[in-house]
C-alpha cells in the first residue's frame, strides 16, 4: 500500500477491482464502511461475481475475468477525452512532458523491438530523448507529438466504451457510470483509493493491471494524498515483510538486486545501478545504492567483507536466468534437475498450478523438507488419499522430513502488514510437544552445515564458514538480536559528511535511520528500508501509542512503518508545486516558508529542506516525477495493453493472432497443455471465502463447520443449460485435470456478452485438500495452467477455461 488501512476513512471514492475486501479482509473493509457512513464516500466494485463487497457498493459493474486492462484504459480514455485530468498535478508531478525516442512505437498489440522467437523485446528504443547533459528532453506545452502525454492519448484512444463492452462484457451504461464517477475525482479536493489484491496479480499481465490503475490515479492526482493511493491488500500476514527482506531469487533485502552472470565485478554491478538523475535537481534516491549494498554485505559477512575483496561481492551467488521463481523451481523439479526442496510453510501441492505436474515434480525429488505448524498436503504428497491424492507411495522415492514449528502465538517477532507497519508481537503460549520456531530451525541448519564444512571442507566453504553470526547462542538466535541486525549498526565511528572530524554515531550503536548508512564498511544493515525500526531508543516496532494527531488517521506512534516511519508514501505530492496542500482538509505535510522546511502530521517524503518547485515528489525515480510511461522497466511494454488470458473464450479483439501475453514465459510442454474454447467453453476463476484462510482454517474446527466442503459456483443460466440443479454434483475439467464438487447455483454470476457471444463464468474457491477437519476436496490448482505474469511470474489463477457436466452424487 502507498497508504494504510485506517486512511481509507479519508476517501471520497473507493474502487475495489481485483479484490474482495469485504470477505477477504473484513476488518480492513471496516474503513470503507466508515468512509461511506461518515463522509458520504461512494464504493464501486468491478468483479466477475456479485461479491459481498459488491453487495454494499453504490455501483457494481460485472467484468469478464482477465480483461481489466481494457476496462481501465477505457476509463483513462474517457478522462482524457472529457478533460477530467488534474492538470497541475499531471504537468508538475508526472513525466507527461518528457520526450520519447523516435524509434519507439506501438502497432497491433506489440511495441517496437519484438522478437517472436525469443518471446521478448529489444528495448533499446524504449527510452527518453536525452540532451547533452544526459537529461530527458521535455516539452512543457505538451504539444510535441513525441511527449509521453501524446503517446498515452494515442495509445488509449482505441479503448472506447463500445470496445470495452465488446471485450469485458460490461454493459456500456454501467461502464460509463463507473467512468463518470471515477473522473469526478480529478478535482483537487476529491480523492479516490484503489483497493486490489490477487484478482489483479494472478494474471499473465498482472503487473500491467496495476500499472493501468496507477496511470489513472496519477491523471486524477490521487497519489500521495490522504484517502488516495494504490493499495495492495495483500493476502498473507507477512508477504510484505518476506518480500521486503528479499526472499525472492532475484532480490537482495530492500528491493536491491542479486547480481547476474554479466556483472563479474562489484564495479560492473554498481555501474548498472548508479541511478543518475534524469532531470536537473532531482534526488534519484537510489544514487545511495552502494551505501545500502555495502551495509548489507557487512551484515552478512562482517569482518570478512572488506574494501580489498569488494566487500565479499563474490560470496553472493549470481543469477543465470531472469528468475528462479516457484514455477521455474517446479519445472526444474519436473525435469529431474532439482534434488532437494525446503518448504518453510507454504503448501505448493495445493498452491502451484497444474497439480498433476506438481505431484510428478515432487516425486522426482531426492528429499523434501516441510516446516509447518500443521500437517499439510505437501508433506503428505506421497500418501494415497483415493481420488483426492491418487498416488502410489511405493513408486515415490522422495525422502520427506516434516518439522513441527511454532505458530504466531508461540513466538516473538515482527510481521509487516499491507500498510507497511512492522508490528512486533510477543509469545503468549508455549509450543505443543517438540515444535520449534522457524528461526531456530534455520539457525540449526546453518550451524550444522557450517560445522560439516569446517570439519570436512568441500565446495567453496568461505561464504558459509565466514557468515557473520553474532548471536549469543549461535544455535538459537533471539528475534530481538536479529531485529537489531536488520535495522543496522555502526561498526566503526560514523563521520559527518559535512565535517570529516565529527563523529555522528559511535561504534556499536544502532543506526537511527538509513541516512546514517555508509559505503566504506563502517555500517552494517540487514535491510536498509527497515533502518529506524530498532534504534538506540529501543524496539520502535513494539510501540503502542495510538494517538492520532489532527485526526488524520495516521497513528504515527503506533509501531514503525517503513520507510522512515512514513505512513503515506509520495506525500510530497499532497501539496501543489508551491508546497500548499491541494486540499487543506486533507493536509499531511506542507512547506513552511518561514522555517524553510517541510512539516506536518507525517514524515515528509522529500528532503526536509528541499525547496518546492525544484525537487519533485517521486524521489526514488531518476526523473523525480511519476511515470505514465515506464521506459524499459517492464518486460511487456511501457504502457499496458489488453491481452487475453492464455486460455480465453474469444480472440484478442485488438490483435487476433496474439495468444496471451506475448512475452510471458512458457516452459516446454506447458503450451501443449493449454486448452481451447471449443473443448473448454467456460471461463473459470478462483476465489476465497470469508470463512476460510487459504488451506489453514480447514484445520480449524469452527471454520470447518462454517464451510465444510468444496463446491463450485455457477450462474442460473448455465445451470439451466447444462441441467445442473443447485446442490447436485458436477465434474469440472480443464486440459490439465478435473475436480468433482457440489454445484452452488447463484444469481451472483451472470453471463456476459463478449464479442457478441454469451460467456459463462464458473467460480472455484480454494480452501480444501485432504488433511484437516473439513471434508476432503480439491483446489483450483488441479485445473489451472502453468503460466505466469510476464514480469513477476505470478501464476494465472484468475482466468482459465473449463468444461462442466452433471454427475451422480458419490456413494456415501
Amino acid at each position: 500500500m502507498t497508504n494504510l488501512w485506517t486512511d481509507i476513512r479519508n476517501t471520497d471514492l473507493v474502487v475495489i477491482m481485483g479484490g474482495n475486501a469485504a470477505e477477504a479482509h473484513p476488518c480492513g473493509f471496516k474503513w470503507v464502511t466508515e468512509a461511506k457512513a461518515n463522509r458520504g464516500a461512494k464504493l464501486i466494485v468491478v468483479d466477475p461475481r456479485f461479491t459481498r463487497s459488491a453487495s454494499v457498493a453504490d455501483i457494481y459493474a460485472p467484468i469478464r475475468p482477465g480483461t481489466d486492462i481494457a476496462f481501465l484504459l477505457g476509463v483513462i480514455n474517457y478522462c482524457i477525452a472529457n478533460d477530467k485530468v488534474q492538470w497541475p498535478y499531471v504537468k508538475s508531478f508526472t513525466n507527461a512532458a518528457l520526450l520519447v525516442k523516435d524509434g519507439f512505437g506501438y502497432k497491433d498489440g506489440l511495441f517496437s523491438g519484438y522478437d517472436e522467437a525469443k518471446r521478448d523485446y529489444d528495448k533499446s528504443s524504449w527510452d527518453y530523448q536525452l540532451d547533452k547533459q544526459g537529461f530527458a528532453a521535455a516539452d512543457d506545452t505538451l504539444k510535441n507529438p513525441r511527449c509521453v502525454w501524446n503517446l498515452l492519448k494515442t495509445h488509449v484512444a482505441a479503448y472506447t466504451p463500445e470496445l470495452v463492452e465488446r471485450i469485458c462484457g460490461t454493459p456500456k451504461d454501467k461502464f460509463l457510470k463507473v467512468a463518470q464517477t471515477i473522473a469526478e475525482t480529478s478535482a483537487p479536493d476529491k480523492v479516490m483509493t484503489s483497493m486490489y489484491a490477487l484478482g489483479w496479480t494472478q494474471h499473465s499481465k498482472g503487473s500491467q493491471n496495476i500499472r493501468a490503475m496507477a496511470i489513472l490515479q496519477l491523471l486524477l492526482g490521487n497519489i500521495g494524498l490522504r484517502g488516495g493511493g494504490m493499495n495492495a491488500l495483500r493476502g498473507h500476514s507477512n508477504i510484505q515483510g518476506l518480500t521486503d527482506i528479499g526472499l525472492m531469487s532475484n532480490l537482495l533485502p530492500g528491493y536491491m538486486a542479486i547480481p547476474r552472470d554479466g556483472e563479474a565485478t562489484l564495479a560492473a554491478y554498481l555501474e548498472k545501478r548508479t541511478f543518475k538523475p534524469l532531470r536537473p535537481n532531482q534526488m534519484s534516491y537510489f544514487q545511495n545504492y552502494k551505501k545500502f549494498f555495502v551495509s548489507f554485505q557487512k551484515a552478512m559477512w562482517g569482518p570478512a567483507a572488506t574494501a580489498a575483496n569488494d566487500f565479499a561481492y563474490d560470496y553472493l551467488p549470481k543469477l543465470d536466468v531472469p528468475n528462479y521463481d516457484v514455477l521455474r523451481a517446479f519445472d526444474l523439479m519436473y525435469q529431474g534437475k532439482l534434488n532437494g526442496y525446503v518448504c518453510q510453510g507454504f503448501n505448493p501441492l495445493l498452491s502451484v498450478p497444474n497439480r498433476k505436474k506438481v505431484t510428478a515434480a515432487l516425486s522426482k525429488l531426492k528429499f523434501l523438507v516441510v516446516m509447518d505448524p500443521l500437517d499439510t498436503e505437501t508433506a503428505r504428497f506421497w500418501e494415497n488419499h483415493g481420488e483426492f491424492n491418487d498416488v502410489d507411495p511405493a513408486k515415490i522415492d522422495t525422502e520427506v522430513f516434516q518439522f513441527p514449528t511454532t505458530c504466531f502465538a508461540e513466538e516473538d517477532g515482527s510481521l509487516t502488514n499491507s500498510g507497511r507497519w512492522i508490528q512486533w508481537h510477543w509469545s503468549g503460549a508455549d509450543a505443543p510437544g517438540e515444535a520449534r520456531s522457524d528461526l531456530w530451525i534455520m539457525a540449526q541448519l546453518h550451524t550444522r552445515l557450517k560445522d560439516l564444512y569446517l570439519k570436512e571442507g568441500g565446495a567453496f566453504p568461505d561464504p558459509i564458514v565466514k557468515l557473520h553470526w553474532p548471536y549469543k547462542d549461535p544455535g538459537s538466535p533471539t528475534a530481538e538480536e536479529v531485529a537489531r541486525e536488520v535495522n543496522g549498526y555502526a561498526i566503526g565511528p560514523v563521520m559527518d559528511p559535512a565535517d570529516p572530524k565529527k563523529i555522528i554515531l559511535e561504534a556499536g550503536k544502532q543506526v537511527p535511520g538509513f541516512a546514517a548508512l555508509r559505503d566504506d564498511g563502517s555500517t552494517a544493515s540487514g535491510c536498509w528500508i527497515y533502518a529506524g525500526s530498532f534504534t538506540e531508543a529501543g524496539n520502535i516496532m513494539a510501540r503502542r501509542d495510538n494517538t492520532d494527531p489532527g485526526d488524520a488517521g495516521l497513528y504515527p506512534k503506533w509501531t514503525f512503518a517503513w520507510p522512515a516511519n512514513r505512513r503515506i508514501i509520495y506525500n510530497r505530492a499532497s501539496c501543489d508545486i508551491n508546497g500548499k496542500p491541494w486540499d487543506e482538509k486533507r493536509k499531511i505535510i506542507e512547506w513552511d516558508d518561514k522555517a524553510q522546511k517541510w512539516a506536518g502530521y507525517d514524515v515528509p517524503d522529500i528532503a526536509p529542506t528541499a525547496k518546492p518547485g525544484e525537487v519533485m515528489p517521486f524521489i526514488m525515480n531518476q526523473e523525480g516525477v511519476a511515470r505514465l510511461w515506464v521506459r524499459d522497466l517492464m518486460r511487456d511494454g511501457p504502457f499496458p495493453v489488453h491481452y487475453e488470458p492464455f486460455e480465453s473464450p474469444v480472440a484478442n479483439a485488438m490483435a487476433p493472432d496474439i495468444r496471451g501475453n506475448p512475452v510471458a514465459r512458457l516452459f516446454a510442454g506447458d503450451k501443449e497443455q493449454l486448452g481451447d474454447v471449443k473443448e473448454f467453453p467456460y471461463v473459470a476463476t478462483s476465489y476465497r471465502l470469508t470463512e476460510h484462510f487459504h488451506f489453514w482454517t480447514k484445520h480449524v474446527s469452527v471454520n470447518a463447520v462454517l464451510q465444510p466442503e468444496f463446491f463450485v459456483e455457477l450462474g442460473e443460466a448455465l445451470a439451466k443449460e447444462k441441467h445442473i440443479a443447485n446442490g447436485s454434483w458436477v465434474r469440472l475439467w480443464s486440459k490439465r485435470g478435473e475436480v468433482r464438487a457440489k454445484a452452488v447455483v447463484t444469481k451472483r454470476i451472470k453471463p456476459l456478452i463478449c464479442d457478441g457471444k454469451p460467456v459463462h463464468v464458473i467460480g472455484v474457491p480454494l480452501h480444501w485438500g485432504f488433511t484437516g477437519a473439513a471434508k476432503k476436496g480439491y483446489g483450483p490448482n488441479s485445473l489451472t495452467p502453468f503460466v505466469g505474469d510476464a514480469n513477476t511470474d505470478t501464476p494465472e489463477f484468475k482466468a482459465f477455461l473449463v468444461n462442466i457436466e452433471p454427475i451422480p452424487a458419490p456413494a456415501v
Partner: protein
Amino acid sequence: MLDDLSRRQFLKGTGAGIAGSALGAFGFGDVEAAHAESIRPFKLARTVETRNTCPYCAVACGVILYAKPAEENAGKRKLLHIEGDPDHPTNRGTLCPKGAALLDFVRAPTRLTKPRYRAAGQTDFKEVSWDWALDRVTRLFKEDRDRNFIAANKAGVTVNRWNTTGFLAASATTNETAFVTYKMVRSAGGVILDNQARV
C-alpha cells in the same frame, strides 16, 4: 501506579468495588457475599495476557492472548482465549470469522508435535529426533552442494551458485526468521528462492 495496574488487577478491583458500594448500599451485603462465594472465579482473571497480531491476512489486526500460566500447566503456558485488541487502531477490537476462531487454530488436532521422517517408498511417517533429522538434512545439503556447486560459468565468471536444491519461504514467518533464512540460503549460494507473494 495506574501504569502498573494490570488488566487482571483492574478486573479484581472493580469487582470488589461493586460488592462494597452499590449493592452494599441497598442492604444486600450479606447476600452478595454469599452469592460471590458460590460463583467460580472469573476464568480470565487468572490468565496472563499477551499482545499479538492475527497471522492470517495482512490487515494485521491486534489480538490479545490469554494463557494459563506455566506453573499451573506442567511448565507450559496454555492458551485459553483469544480476542480482538480494542486498543489497536485498525481493528479496534473486532475480528472476522477467521480471526475469531484463532484459538482452534493454535489448538488444532492436526498441529504437529514431533519431527517425522518418511523414507523412500514407504507408506508412513515415523517419529525421529531433532538431532537425527537436522543432521540428515544438512548431510543431504552438503552432498548435493558439493556435487553440483557451480563456481564459475562457461565464460569463466565467478558465479558461486547452488541451483540443485531450492528453498520456498512462506507467508507468515517473522521478518527475523526471514533474515536468518536469507543468510542461511544465500551464504550457501542458493538461487532457487521464493516466497508466497505470488499465490
